[in-house]
């Protein structure tokens, strides 16, 4: 799949200011790490998944159990936002059909349930949903399936890597219950793509840094388009 990903995605770096137009990333960083980290990120050139980077810094920086679990949950929420948006847009546009037609409907319903559950658990601490530009992948049969394989593999690997870092047993139980579903999705997508569903006896997790780099390379996470203005209108009246 590596070559397919390279074919699909090209790497691009954005500044935080370009990426974080609605302040969601800064909000997360400030919540979990304090102003210093936010200021650092403001000046830095970061990848398209800077939101994930915010979670990466949180546990080490805060040292508090509750804060580190909140950061991990927000990291998971960002991945779930990405997956849910991907399948939701595909289902709504209706351009993916054939044997893949049930995929966005079924996986989208599950990923939206994950979003709902994690947001409810986080309450007001939940990060805002970013905007997504899927660049035509949700309207292309082949690219959709390749991306679905990559996303589900990524989701399973991300949860796996974070599980040992979760302090709360109840949150760990919740994370594992989602992780196994992501793994089932990954196997299903791999089967549809003609890729061995379980090629190894033991799976490796992916660190936040690795996940961040992969998500950034997609350039799928973007700023919200500006839809309101305070300029004096020039309509005909």
């Amino acid at each position, binding site marked *: 799949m590596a070559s397919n990903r390279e074919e699909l995605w090209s790497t691009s770096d954005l500044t935080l200011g370009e990426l974080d137009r609605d302040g969601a990333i800064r909000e997360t960083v400030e919540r979990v790490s304090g102003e210093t980290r936010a200021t650092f990120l403001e000046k830095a050139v970061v990848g398209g998944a800077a939101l994930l980077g915010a979670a990466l810094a949180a546990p080490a920086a805060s040292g508090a159990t509750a804060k580190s679990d909140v950061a991990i949950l927000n990291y998971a929420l960002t991945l779930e936002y990405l997956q849910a948006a991907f399948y939701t847009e595909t*289902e709504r546009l209706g351009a993916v059909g054939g044997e893949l037609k049930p995929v966005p409907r079924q996986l989208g319903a599950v990923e939206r349930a994950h979003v709902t559950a994690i947001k409810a658990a986080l309450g007001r601490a939940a990060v805002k949903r970013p905007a997504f530009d899927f660049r035509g992948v949700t309207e292309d049969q082949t690219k959709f399936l390749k991306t679905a394989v990559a996303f589900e593999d990524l989701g399973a690997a991300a949860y796996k890597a974070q599980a040992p870092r979760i302090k709360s047993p109840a949150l760990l139980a919740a994370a594992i219950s989602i992780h196994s579903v992501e793994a089932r999705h990954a196997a299903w997508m791999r089967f549809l793509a003609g890729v061995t569903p379980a090629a190894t006896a033991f799976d490796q997790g992916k660190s936040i840094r690795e996940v961040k780099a992969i998500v950034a390379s997609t350039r799928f996470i973007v700023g919200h388009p500006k839809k309101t203005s305070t300029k004096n209108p020039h309509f005909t009246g």
Partner: protein
Amino acid sequence: MAKGNGGQRRVGGALGVAAAAIAAAGIAVLVSSRSASLSSVEGAQALPASSPSALTVPLPVRLPRSGTVAHWASVRRDVTARASPSYRASAVEELATTTPEGTANLVQVVGRARDREGRLWIHVRLPVLPNSRTGWVPRQALGVYGVVHTHLLIDLERLRATLRRDGRPIFRAPIGVGRPEWPTPKGEFYIRDMVTRYRSPFFGPLAFGTSARSSGLTDWPGGGFIGIHGTDEPELLPGRVSHGCIRLRNQDILELGRLMPVGTPVTIR
């Protein structure tokens, strides 16, 4: 057992062998390991109970079945809209990334097709004259997609605006429309942006920009776009009183601002 059940018998036999092997392995573990004894299994009852999940797990969230979903897309880079899905097709209009109000330039998505080389083109409704015109742009030139469940109907005869969500009316209000010499254009349009906190009292507290344009006031600043906005002359509504814009009482435009997202399709008839 009948001959035809030979396959089942073989399967049953294989399962029996497997079960015996698993049982033998289990016994071997119990015998060989001091920790895995019958007494330790009994002791397992003293282990703490497994943790309940911290999440209240909802059922899978299906998308609502609705016949009124409409999509918009932001223009990511300056692009030429063409008459058909091909770089060789004639140019219809140049699309910029921003509107005269400084917001992202949105287009309404009405379809898609691939050219001979397999490139994806998106059929979009354009904010150009003649009104209701459509064109094709390469998907690469577009950015974020959005979705709305609302549709605004402007009835020029009855002087009434009706907003529907998922087909159901959720808002109705009397309106002012264009005078006979500056008629409000008929056709299919969409909401491009929303403007608030500006200085002019003429437009009331809030104004929506639409993709509709006056066919008579083409030299108007900003291109003669038709707005949907409040007013400082509410006593004139309903009526044919404007330069083509659609005026609402201020309390009505504020309510519409709460209910109608940018990107909403607009039918003026």
